[in-house]
């Protein structure tokens, strides 16, 4: 490939454009443990002062560990629902000749492209009416439901790649379709389940608008709402403290991303974020 000539200029231009991002992420780490006097960027001392939120509650705020537990419950419950429901529905849509199958598929696709955030007002009112407002259950059910079209579509894609011969062999040996799915097909789509699982967990962990609107209460607060509330409340922004909480919040994301990078790329490629 003709890729050597003049790449110095390109690198320089790209580096200039990327500089704000690099600075932000570098200082995200530096500032959490560094002591820098006002008007100076680089720290001249080491401190754990900004991490005190781990062992003492901030005034008027929920306990960080309770909030972290809520976030974990929210993200994992959403993931479990999305996986269970998508791996069954995806199979049905990929392999079983159902009446109205084409309509179901078209429906899944339209909903997949549909911008779910526009529904937040109606969902808020529905949860108020059925009494699930300000509960983790409510926001879990909503998040999982909104994620389902994507999940079903991805799982259907993975089922589509499994050779029909496996299934036919199973059926000819007299196994029921359920047994064939459970014993033969499901093991074939483990990479899909893994990718979708990690993606759903990260989506749940990062979600802000849904819990902010549907479960803002201190008792059911998740980390995104906790951090956003802290930033919004404070007149004198303590960026070092906020960044420490932010870094604490993003650690699981970084770990999962490092391990599952390749698998996630496929899903993010068709992702839904602006």
């Amino acid at each position, binding site marked *: 490939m*003709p*890729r050597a000539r*003049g*790449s110095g200029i*390109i690198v320089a231009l*790209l580096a200039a*454009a990327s500089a*704000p*991002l690099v*600075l*932000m*992420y570098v200082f995200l780490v530096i500032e959490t443990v560094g002591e820098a006097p006002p008007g100076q*960027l680089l720290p001249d001392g080491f401190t754990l002062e900004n991490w005190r939120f781990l062992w003492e509650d901030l005034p008027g705020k929920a306990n960080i560990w309770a909030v972290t537990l809520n976030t974990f419950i929210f993200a994992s419950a959403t993931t479990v629902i999305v996986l269970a*429901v998508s791996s069954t529905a995806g199979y*049905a849509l990929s392999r079983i*000749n*159902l*009446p109205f199958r084409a309509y179901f598929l*078209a429906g899944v*696709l*339209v909903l997949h*492209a*549909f*911008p779910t*955030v*526009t*529904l*937040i*007002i*109606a*969902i808020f*009112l529905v949860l*108020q*009416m059925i009494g699930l407002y300000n509960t983790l259950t409510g926001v879990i*059910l909503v998040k*999982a*439901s909104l994620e*389902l*079209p994507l999940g079903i579509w991805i799982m259907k894609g993975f089922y589509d790649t499994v050779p*029909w011969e496996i299934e*036919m062999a199973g059926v000819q040996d007299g196994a029921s379709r*359920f047994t064939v*799915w459970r014993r033969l097909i499901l093991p074939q789509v483990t990479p899909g389940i893994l990718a979708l699982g990690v993606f759903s967990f990260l989506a749940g962990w*990062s979600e*802000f*608008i849904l819990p902010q*609107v549907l479960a803002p209460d201190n008792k059911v607060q998740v980390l995104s709402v906790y951090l956003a509330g802290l930033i919004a409340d404070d007149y004198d922004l303590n*960026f070092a403290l*906020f*960044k420490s909480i*932010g870094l604490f*919040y*993003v650690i699981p*994301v970084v770990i999962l991303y490092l391990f599952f990078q390749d698998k996630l790329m496929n899903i*993010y*490629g068709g*992702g*839904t*974020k*602006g």
Partner: protein
Amino acid sequence: MTPGKWLGVLFLMPATLFVVVFFLSPVLLTAVFAFTSMSTATGVGEGGYLITPSTLHRLAERGMDRSTAESLGATTYLVNPETLSRARAAGVAAATLDELGQRHAGKSFDGRRGFERALKSLNNRPRSVRALKQAARHFETSVLNRTFGQREDLLAALAASGVRLSDEDRERLVDASYTGWTWTTDNLRRMFGTADTAQVLANTLIYVFVTLILFNTGFALVLAITTFYLPTTEAAVFRGIWFLPRITPPVLYVLLWKWFAWDTGFLSTVLGWFGVASRNWMLDTAFNAWVFVVLINGFVGASMGMIIFSSAIRAIPEPLFWASEVDGASRWQQVRRIILPQLRWPILFVTSYQTLSLLTSFEYILLATDGGPGSTTEVWSLAAYHTALNNYAGNLQYGYGAALALVLVIIGVVLSLLYLRIFNFDALVARPRIET
């Protein structure tokens, strides 16, 4: 049906249930709520009936006889089993109450004086003036400031208080005192009729198209093409950097931008070394706020195009590049004649997909400028959020907010259906090969 089909139905059931309850029904309900007057004041459930002094004022304005309206607000004293047991529970002497019950059961007294006189004339009258006044209080009855769950309860209380109303007045009262939401088309009229809407619409168009052109397609193309020509390591580093915003939780990502732009943050500190006074670069002028809104959204949005365009470029057969190289084509000619024509469909896909998601997303703007300064960066979806779910005034107008959201929901449905047709997905819907 065959067992296989039953399994399919069973497998689809949970998905259908979830999607219908929490996805499809909100789509339809947005349309329903858009035609109601729901707000914090009316609540979302069924309302009650409450007569307040302002209700009486309103009634008089609507043509009810003023003295009739005032009589509704008057306090009467009733002697009946209910008031007697209320007084008993509050500790008024049993003998007094028994005698009162025997002599005045079912009677009503128009004023406090009349009732106190009746109490005084009892053989077992309260011992002191204070006790007497306190005892009298338990017999006060008024329809004012009491919430009635049902229309019948209101009418019953009205009858008990002794106020006589004509049928017409009664209907007026029932209407005026209802606290719940009602059906209305005011929301739509208001939406199409106010100058605010035009401003918000203009903001939305600026936000969507500027971000889209500069970043989500424009800069995404630049990233994809430049990293294609770079050595693998450099390319991976830049793609990695530009992918960071997408995996960073929005709250943290916007926090980093705030640190970058705030008056105690990066820009102010660095410019301070050159004598520029520190200020909030994000919020000090409307123009700056727009710059940051576009940058914040654009830096996230660029990565989707980057991934899709990169893989599309990699799919171009390499001999095409070799051949053009031999023919002496410059880089620019390669981009212009080979890469861009191949990217026509990916560009259309990314552009249409991102138009919809930019149009409806407000998360980053909410966290960054919250529509400010003033409401210069208030876009349509954020206006719906502010109207219905969070504002400083505190009276959340669910109905009007739903009407604003309805516009986006309709655009969402139409565009998603359109995209489904354009990006021909029929090929993906192949029929299954086992018919059992």
